[in-house]
């Protein structure tokens, strides 16, 4: 529980610092924070969708390559930590792109 407390404390501290920098130096307003949170959640939602698609495609490719005798791809590779992180970046980029319409 000590690790969790430390992580949460650090997040709170950096959020407060970002709030102070944003309001005092960058001129952004507190009332815009909910929209920013909404944007983040939308990006996260898109990241989840990208992740599901990536896992599905990865498994299909792995199973097909086994069935066709092309190569043996361990399906555990689909569980690699890089996949959710990169899926999240895909979601963030896609959401930003949608917002540019």
């Amino acid at each position, binding site marked *: 529980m000590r690790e969790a407390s430390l992580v949460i404390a650090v997040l709170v501290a950096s959020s407060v610092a970002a709030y102070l920098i944003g309001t005092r130096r960058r001129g952004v307003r507190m009332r815009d924070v909910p929209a920013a949170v909404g944007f983040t959640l939308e990006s996260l*939602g898109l990241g989840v969708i990208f992740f599901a698609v990536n896992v599905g495609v990865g498994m299909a490719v792995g199973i097909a390559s086994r069935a066709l005798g092309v190569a043996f791809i361990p399906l555990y590779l689909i569980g690699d930590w890089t996949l959710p992180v990169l899926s999240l970046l895909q979601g963030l980029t896609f959401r930003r792109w949608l917002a540019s319409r």
Partner: protein
Amino acid sequence: MIDALSRPAALSMRGLRLLGAAALLAFLAVAFTPLADTLAHRLVEPAPLGPADAIIVLGAGLGADGGLSDQSLGRFVYGVRLYRRGLAPVLVFTGGPAARGRPEAEVRAALARELGVPATDIIVVAAARTTREEALRVKDDLGARGVSRILLVTGGSHMERARALFRRAGFTVQAAPLTEAATSPEDRLDLMRRVLQEVVARAYYRLAGWL
């Protein structure tokens, strides 16, 4: 932002927000509560261990340096401990071919010999790449030796699927699962990843008719 979008688009954005919020809550619940531990323990049923004909230590992969991964090492140590307790006269190591270097099973066998396990008591099954192949290869190698009762060593979340496959191969299986406890957020996320991988693997094996 939503106001600037058409109605269908706004609805889909609300859906995305809900999905994102659910994902965030799930992430926080896994990282900062004992949820992963609880789920992992539900996948294991501890049972007293008795004598068997062989101890089968399933593979868990090698590290980038060609040494045993943490999971592989944990299973290896547990298997050797069971052997030292005299629960079976034979120690079987599985673990398939590596991208470079020796297969996992051979790395384990060499380590066991260094630790004083007689070479005559070690059997290496190095050709299997999946849990199903491990069950079939072990059956091929041990069936002729009259081995029927086995102690199966693997991770707790992996045990149910592995035990079902070895039973199906004709063995009487005693499960010797490694406890998978997590004490930090990172450990909990990793444990949940393994639990989810196992859920997907079971679904795949059921669809394929192997379970």
